[in-house]
Structures are given as structure tokens and as C-alpha cells.
């Protein structure tokens, strides 16, 4: 059982690394676009909180932004991919427990996943 655990963990770890790398590349592409299109003059003021523009807060808004060629939306897509990597880890671990016929920990994974999905449900 220990060996299977280790193999499973390693596979999960590699998946996570790939996910982070992909997210970083998307953020970098968005960042280059952002800096090319950045208006001349002083940087945006972050010292007062207004919250970012509404279209940068939902997956649909971000998607429409990307179709318009909006650089900030591309960065936000990368960040969404990043937020998804731990969720994928929990799903993969749960599947792994099922394959090991460890029902107890498959249910533990489902509980963690439920909390994560509850939080992500906010960004609909």
C-alpha cells in the first residue's frame, strides 16, 4: 500500500507542477500584453480599494474579455488555472483512494472537494 501511495503522490505532484507551469505561462503572456498596452503616465493607484472591474471577477466575464483581447483577462485566466491546480490534486487523490479501495479516505476527499467547490461557486 505504501508503494502505491508513493506512486500516486508522485503522479499528483507532477500534475500540479505542470498545472502551475501552464498557469505561469498564461500569466506571463497576459503580462507582456498588459505592459505593451499600458498607457503612458503613472501606474494605477492601488492605495484605495474599489475592487477590480466586474468582468475580472467571473469566468464568463474573463472569457469575454479574452475574446476582446483584454490583457488583464488573460492574466486572470492564468490565475484561474492556478486556483484550479489544488482542486485537481484533491480529485486525483480521491480517485487514487478509490483505486486502493480505501472508502473512508475517498469520502474524506469528497468532503474537502465539497468545501472547495462551495468557495468556487461564488465566482459564478
Amino acid at each position, binding site marked *: 500500500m505504501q508503494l502505491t501511495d508513493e506512486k*500516486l503522490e508522485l503522479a499528483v505532484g507532477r500534475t500540479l507542477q505542470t498545472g*502551475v507551469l501552464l498557469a505561469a505561462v498564461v500569466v506571463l503572456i497576459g503580462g507582456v500584453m498588459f505592459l505593451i498596452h499600458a498607457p503612458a503616465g503613472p501606474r494605477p493607484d492601488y492605495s484605495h480599494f474599489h*475592487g477590480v*472591474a466586474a468582468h475580472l471577477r467571473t469566468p464568463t466575464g474573463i472569457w469575454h474579455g479574452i475574446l476582446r483581447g483584454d490583457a488583464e483577462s488573460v492574466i486572470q485566466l492564468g490565475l484561474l488555472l492556478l486556483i484550479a*491546480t489544488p482542486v485537481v490534486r484533491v480529485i486525483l487523490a480521491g480517485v487514487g483512494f478509490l483505486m486502493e479501495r480505501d472508502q473512508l479516505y475517498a469520502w474524506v476527499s469528497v468532503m474537502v472537494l465539497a*468545501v472547495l467547490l462551495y468557495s468556487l461557486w461564488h465566482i459564478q
Partner: protein
Amino acid sequence: MSSAEFSGILFFSSVLAGLLGALTGLGGGVVIVPLLTLVFHVDIRYAIGASLVSVIATSSGAAAAYVREGFSNIRIGMFLEIATTLGAVFGAYLTTRVPTEAIGIVFGLVLLYSAVASYKGKHSNEGLLTTSGLAGMLRLRGSFPCEGKEVEYVAQRVPAGFGLMFSAGTLSGLLGIGSGAVKVLAMDQAMGLPFKVSTTTSNFMIGVTAAASAGIYLSRGYISPGLSMPVMLGVLAGSLTGAKILVHANVKTLRTVFAVVIVVMGIEMIINSVMGKL
């Protein structure tokens, strides 16, 4: 300062934060918020958003390396993640309701604690074998290689560890940090797990915990792409480089310097919060 200059300075500061965080084991995320608020006068809510994103990147990016060492315990981690994710959701809600001055003061105290925790206490790599009902039922046990032999261990005081993990999650969601110091406290001190198992399992849990508050942050507009982009890329690059050179470096002096920096930042965050300047 133009957007390009600002992004450049933020990127290099974040590389440094990630590098120092990985080398000293204190984590880069813990200095991002004070850096952004104290040095660059960014509102603490934007700072927390950018910090949380970089915490997820570091944790997921280093996951494979920790697994390869064979110390982390996936079952203990997953079980405790029920507590940390619930705490993180609670913490993220608190962030939207608590005044920013209070967040700043709590942040300062956590910084002071993190610096002290890196020094105090004896860290044992021995395993305890007393099995209580809960630890037996949930199979919260394992073994890890230490100096050529397998050391076996069983989790102690499970309810206390679970409760502390909820607090760690709450702090993570409230402050946008990994709160690794509190997670290690729960596993190493409360549950009596070997130190190496505690630190690696904690690193593995940080990303999942942070993801639980990220959805709420995003929907509230805390995650600013212009700020998060240089911070996330910088911290990720810095921490991955730091993890690679860690084996060759003598980090004792560096650790002291970084701990002092964190203490100064902690005090400054508390003073600025009390005076309403944050």
C-alpha cells in the same frame, strides 16, 4: 512611476521574497503583504489577494519535490484539510467584514509569531506510537525514512490538532498567507508527529487551503491582475530557485537576518494599523 517600472520593481522584490522564504523555511508569502502595504502603499485587500495567489503557486509548484522525499503523509494531510478549508472559507468571509486596521494588527502578530516559532522548541524526528480511538479509526499513522531506518509514528491528540488546523485555515483566509507556522505547530507540537513529516505535509496542504478562499477573494474583486502578475511570477521563480540551492547553502545567518526583517515588519504593521495609516 509607470506601470512597467512598477511591475519590474514588484517582480524583483517578489523574487527576493520567494528566495528568502524558501531558503529559511519561513515561506515567501508572509512578507508579500507587508512589502506591498508598507513599501508600495497598496491597500491591504489587494495585497492579500496577490499574496494568496503566490502562496498557491509556491505550494503546488514544489509539491513533486516534497513527495519525492517521501516524508509527507497524504492521509493525515487530507483529513486535516477538512479543517483548514472550512477555516479558510470562514477567514475569507471575515476579511470582507472586519475593518482593515484589525486585519493589519492580526497580521503583525502572526509575523512576530512566525519569527519566534522558527527558533523555539525542540523539533523531534522521533515517532510516538500510542494509538487513541480516533487516530486508530482514521488510520492516522505512517512511517518515513530517517538515517537509514524506517521510523513509525501515530498521530496523538487528534481533536486538538484538528482545532488548531481550523485556526490555521482561518488565518490563511483572513490574511492571504499559507500560515505554515501554525500548521506545523498543530502537527509537530499538538499531534506529536515527527518534524520532517509535519513540515512537508504542511507544505502540501497550503495550496488546497489557499484555494478554498481564492474563489471568495476573486468574486469580491481582491485579485488584481496588474498586481498579482509580477508578484506571482516573482515569488514562484524565487522559491523554486531557493529550493534548488537549499541543499548547498548555510542558512543560519540568513535565517537570523530574515527573522529580524519579519519582526520589524510585524511591529511596523501593528503601529501603522493602530495609527490608521494602513
